C-alpha cells in the first residue's frame, strides 16, 4: 500500500491508518480493542446502513454518523465513547425493541443473541412504551432447515442480502412497511438450497433458527473447538460444538477463513457431527462372529494375520485406503505393514463408484466428498508407492489377495455403494476393517477395529487446492478408544 492511498485518523484518541475509501467501521475493527455496536453490518456482506445502531461522533460534524457507511477522511477524529454516542446506542436499542416480544426465555438464540448481548452492554433497561406491540407471524416453516419468527426480527436485512449476494437465490424480501414490515418468502415458496443454515448464523437475533438444533441444548452448555469439515475436498474450517459433560456433539458452524470458505459452509457439511456421537460409534473391536474383543486380543489377532503373510514367497496383501483419513494415518499403516511383512503391500485407493468427483456448485461444495484426496496422493508419492485407484472394490476382489487391510470411510454417506463394496470384501479369505461406524454393514469380516473421527485426532488434511490444514484433537467420545497408531503400536 503506497503512502498516499492510506488515510490516517484517530478513534478515541488512538491513531490508525487504513486504505482510502475504508469506512469508520473498518478502521475501528483494525484497531481491535474498540467495539462499535452494530446489527446490519457484516464483514462478508455489502453495507446496508439500515439498523442505525453504529452511531459515532466525528469531530467537526454536528450530528452523529453511522460508522459502517461513513468513509474515513485524513485527520478525522472519531469518538465512540462520548455521552451522546452512548445515549444514541441506548435509544437505537430501545427502538429495535418496540415490537420485540421479549420471549428470550424460550428463544433458541438466547445466550448468543446480539440483541440480548448488546442490551446487557449498552441498553437502557427501562421501557417507556405505552403503545401495544404489533403482533406478527411466528414459528413459520420457511424451509427444510429453518424456522422464522418475524416478531423477533429487527429488519437488519442480512438474510435478504445473503440470498441475493451469496446463493443468488433471492428468496427473501421485506414486505409491508414501517412497523408492519416483515421478512418473508413469496407465498408458498421455501428456502431451498445447500447453504440455508448460514441464515441462522448471520441472523443476529432469534428470528431464523435451525430446525436441527432448536430446543436441543442451551448454548451455554456447549464448548466450541476448531476443526476441518470432512464433507468434501473444499475442507471448510468449522467450529464444532460439544456438550462438555456428555461429550455429545450438537452442531457445526463455519469458522472464518478467507482462503478456504470465507464466512460460510454448506448444509451437507452441517450434518458432519452426526457420526461423531457414541450412539453411532463402533466402540470396541469385533471378531468375525461379531463378538467384542479386548483391544489387546484384537491387536494380537491383527499381528498374527499379518505375520502369517510375511516373507517374500507368501500370498498377496492388499492395503485399501479411502481419502478420508489423515496423511499421518496413511503413512503409519503402510509403514507398519511394510515392516511386518518384509515387503510392500499392494495399495489400492478405494473411491465411490457413483461419485461425480469434479463437480462443483460454484460456491463451496465439491463432488469429491472426501476431505483428503490430495493428501493421500501426496503421501503415496512421498512413500514412493504407486497405488491402484479403483471405483468400488471389484479390483481388490480380483487381486487374489490373501489378506486385505481396509481403512474404510469415516463418512459412510459419501459411499452410497458401500453395501455392494463390502459384499466383495466378504468373499475374501481374510479382511481387517478399520471403521468408526456401529452399523452392521461391515459385519462378518475377520476383524473390525474402531477408529477415531476427525474431531478426535491430530493430523493433516490437504484440500482440493493443495492447502495443508491441521486437525486438533478433542477428548475421545469414550476414553477407551485407541488411535490407529496406538493400535498398531500394540500389534
Amino acid at each position, binding site marked *: 500500500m503506497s503512502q498516499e492511498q492510506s488515510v490516517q485518523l484517530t478513534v478515541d484518541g488512538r491513531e490508525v491508518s487504513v486504505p482510502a475509501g475504508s469506512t469508520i467501521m473498518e478502521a475501528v475493527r483494525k484497531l481491535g480493542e474498540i467495539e462499535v455496536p452494530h446489527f446490519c453490518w457484516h464483514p462478508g456482506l455489502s453495507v446496508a446502513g439500515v439498523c442505525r445502531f453504529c452511531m459515532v461522533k466525528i469531530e467537526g460534524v454536528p450530528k452523529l454518523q453511522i460508522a459502517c457507511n461513513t468513509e474515513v477522511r485524513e485527520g478525522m477524529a472519531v469518538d465512540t465513547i462520548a455521552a451522546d454516542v452512548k445515549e444514541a446506542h441506548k435509544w437505537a436499542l430501545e427502538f429495535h425493541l418496540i415490537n420485540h416480544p421479549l420471549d428470550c426465555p424460550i428463544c433458541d438464540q438466547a445466550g448468543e443473541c446480539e440483541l440480548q448481548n448488546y442490551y446487557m452492554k449498552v441498553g437502557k433497561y427501562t421501557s417507556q412504551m405505552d403503545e401495544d406491540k404489533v403482533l406478527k407471524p411466528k414459528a413459520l416453516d420457511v424451509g427444510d432447515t429453518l424456522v422464522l419468527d418475524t416478531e423477533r426480527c429487527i429488519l437488519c436485512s442480512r438474510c435478504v442480502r445473503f440470498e441475493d449476494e451469496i446463493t443468488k437465490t433471492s428468496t427473501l424480501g421485506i*414486505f409491508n*412497511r414501517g412497523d408492519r414490515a416483515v421478512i418473508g418468502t*413469496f407465498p408458498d415458496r421455501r428456502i431451498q438450497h445447500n447453504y440455508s443454515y448460514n441464515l441462522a448464523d448471520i441472523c443476529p437475533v432469534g428470528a431464523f433458527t435451525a430446525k436441527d438444533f432448536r430446543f436441543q441444548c442451551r448454548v451455554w452448555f456447549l464448548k466450541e473447538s476448531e476443526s476441518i469439515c470432512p464433507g468434501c475436498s473444499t475442507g471448510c474450517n468449522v467450529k464444532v460444538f460439544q456438550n462438555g459433560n456428555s461429550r455429545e456433539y450438537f452442531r457445526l458452524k463455519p469458522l472464518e477463513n478467507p482462503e478456504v470458505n470465507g464466512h460460510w459452509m454448506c448444509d451437507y457439511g452441517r450434518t458432519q457431527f452426526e457420526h461423531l456421537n457414541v450412539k453411532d460409534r463402533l466402540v470396541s473391536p469385533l471378531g468375525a462372529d461379531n463378538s467384542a474383543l479386548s483391544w489387546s486380543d484384537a491387536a494380537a489377532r491383527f499381528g498374527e494375520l499379518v505375520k502369517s503373510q510375511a516373507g517374500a514367497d507368501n500370498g498377496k496383501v492388499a492395503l485399501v485406503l479411502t481419502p478420508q483419513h489423515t496423511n499421518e494415518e496413511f503413512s503409519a499403516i503402510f509403514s507398519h505393514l511394510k515392516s511386518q511383512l518384509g515387503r510392500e503391500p499392494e495399495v489400492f485407493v478405494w473411491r465411490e463408484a457413483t461419485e461425480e468427483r469434479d463437480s462443483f456448485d460454484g460456491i463451496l461444495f465439491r463432488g469429491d466428498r472426501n476431505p483428503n484426496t490430495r493428501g493421500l496422493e501426496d503421501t503415496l508419492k512421498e512413500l514412493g508407492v504407486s497405488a491402484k485407484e479403483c471405483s468400488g472394490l471389484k479390483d481388490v476382489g480380483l487381486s487374489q489377495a490373501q489378506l486385505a487391510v481396509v481403512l474404510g470411510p469415516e463418512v459412510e454417506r459419501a459411499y452410497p455403494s458401500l453395501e455392494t463394496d463390502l459384499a466383495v470384501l466378504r468373499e475374501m479369505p481374510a479382511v481387517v476393517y478399520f471403521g468408526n461406524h456401529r452399523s452392521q454393514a461391515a459385519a462378518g469380516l475377520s476383524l473390525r477395529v474402531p477408529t477415531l473421527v476427525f474431531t478426535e485426532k491430530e493430523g493433516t488434511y490437504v484440500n482440493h487446492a493443495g492447502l495443508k490444514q491441521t486437525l486438533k484433537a478433542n477428548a475421545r467420545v469414550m476414553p477407551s478408544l485407541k488411535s490407529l497408531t496406538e493400535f498398531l503400536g500394540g500389534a
Partner: protein
Amino acid sequence: MSTTTHPFSDELKARIKSFLTRYETKRSSILPILHAIQDEKDWISEDDVALLESEFDLSAVDVREVLTFYSMYRTSPPEPWRLEICNSISCWLMGSKKTLEAAERRIQEAKSRGEKLPFSCREVECLGLCGKGPVGFVNKERHENVTPERALQLMEEYSQKPLPAAAVRCAELQTGEGSASENPHSN
C-alpha cells in the same frame, strides 16, 4: 375488448415490455408496471406477481416488496368506486372526519339493507389541495369541498354511471374466462 384466458391483455403486455426497457435496470420499472396492471384490472394478485417473474423476468420477491410497501396498490378485488378522503391537517380542520363518517355510515346502511352500492371509502394523507378541504378522490377524479352532504351526493352520482372499464375487467376475471361481465359485487 376481447377477453382471453391470460389475465393481461395484449395492450397491457406491450406496455409492460415498454416499461422494462425504460430504465437502467428492470427492477426500476416495477412501480409503473404495477400501476399499469392495476389500471387495467383494478387490483394486483399474487398470481399476477408470479406472472411478472415467469414471463417478464422480474423477481417475484422484489415485486412483492414494492407492492406491499405502498397502500395505493390494491392486493384484493376492490369495489368499482372508491372514495378517498384526505384526513391531513387542513382537511381535518375543515371537518373531513365528518365526511368520512357520513360515507361509512351510508355504506354500512346499504350493506345491511342488501342494497347494491358499488362503493368503498377510506381516509388518505394530504392530496396537495389543502386550500379546498375537505378534499376527496373518487377513483382518479378529484373533488373539492367534500362536505358530508356532498359525499353522499357524489356516491349517488357515481352509482348511476356505467362501471369503469377496470372494474368490468376485474369482474370478468373473477367469474372466469371472461364469459360474463356481471358485477362481482352484485351478490
